[in-house]
């Protein structure tokens, strides 16, 4: 029988798939969570403004920015419950992104819209 040497240590799969994901994110693939958050933001932001433009002819960029950043905050908070998924500075960046979107949104409103 030939034994192969693995180039990476296999995750311990006896404790369920969540343990595998946690082992990945805290080890070799720590960009997984930021990529998920970035994916969420881009899907909501670009998808929203694109579909709104197709349907109505114009897009409310600032409204979709604040909506996308709030949609990103929810999984970021869920990831913050367990240690190893998300770092503090990433969570802070998501919260600050929310505040920046709010500044854009509320200063973007016309005088008749507030």
């Amino acid at each position, binding site marked *: 029988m030939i034994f192969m040497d693995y180039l990476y240590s296999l995750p311990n799969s006896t404790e369920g798939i969540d343990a595998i994901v946690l082992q990945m994110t805290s080890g070799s693939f720590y960009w997984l969570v930021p990529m998920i958050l970035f994916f969420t933001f881009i899907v909501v932001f670009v998808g929203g403004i694109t579909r709104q433009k197709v349907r109505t002819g114009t897009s409310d960029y600032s409204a979709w920015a604040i909506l996308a950043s709030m949609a990103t905050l929810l999984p970021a*908070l869920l990831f*913050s419950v367990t240690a190893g998924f998300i770092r503090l500075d990433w*969570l*802070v960046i998501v*919260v*600050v992104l929310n505040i920046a979107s709010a500044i854009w949104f*509320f*200063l973007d*409103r016309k*005088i008749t819209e507030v």
Partner: protein
Amino acid sequence: MANSTTTMIISLTMIILFSVAIIGFSIGFANDNDASVRIDDNSNINSVYSDSKNSIDSFKNDSDDTYSSIINTTIESGSDVIKSPAVFTLTWGNLFSTFGVILNVIYQEIFGGNPTFAIFITSFITIIGIMFTLYIIKAWRGNP
């Protein structure tokens, strides 16, 4: 004049209220679920949260005082009308300074306070300055 000023005050108030709400929700979520990564471990976020809350509290007190002064105003029979609209004035309070604190946390946390971003932040502050100047001119002239 009143329209633009009111819009600006409401915009700043909503920005600060949103900041308080989103940070407060994050802190509450961490407390409820005993989270491992807590947003209030960051000192900049904490300072924005406390500053925003104080600002909103003082703004609320100012608004209450203004409201009280309006409903307590009496005009004696035969007296002249009020010459000044001072009783209807809603002051800016420290909304501007809190807005500066919020801008500072964006600079610190997203751009890391790195000097290489100085040109970006300088341009951004210039644009914000132009916006404020235009708002002030608009408030001074009134809307067409």
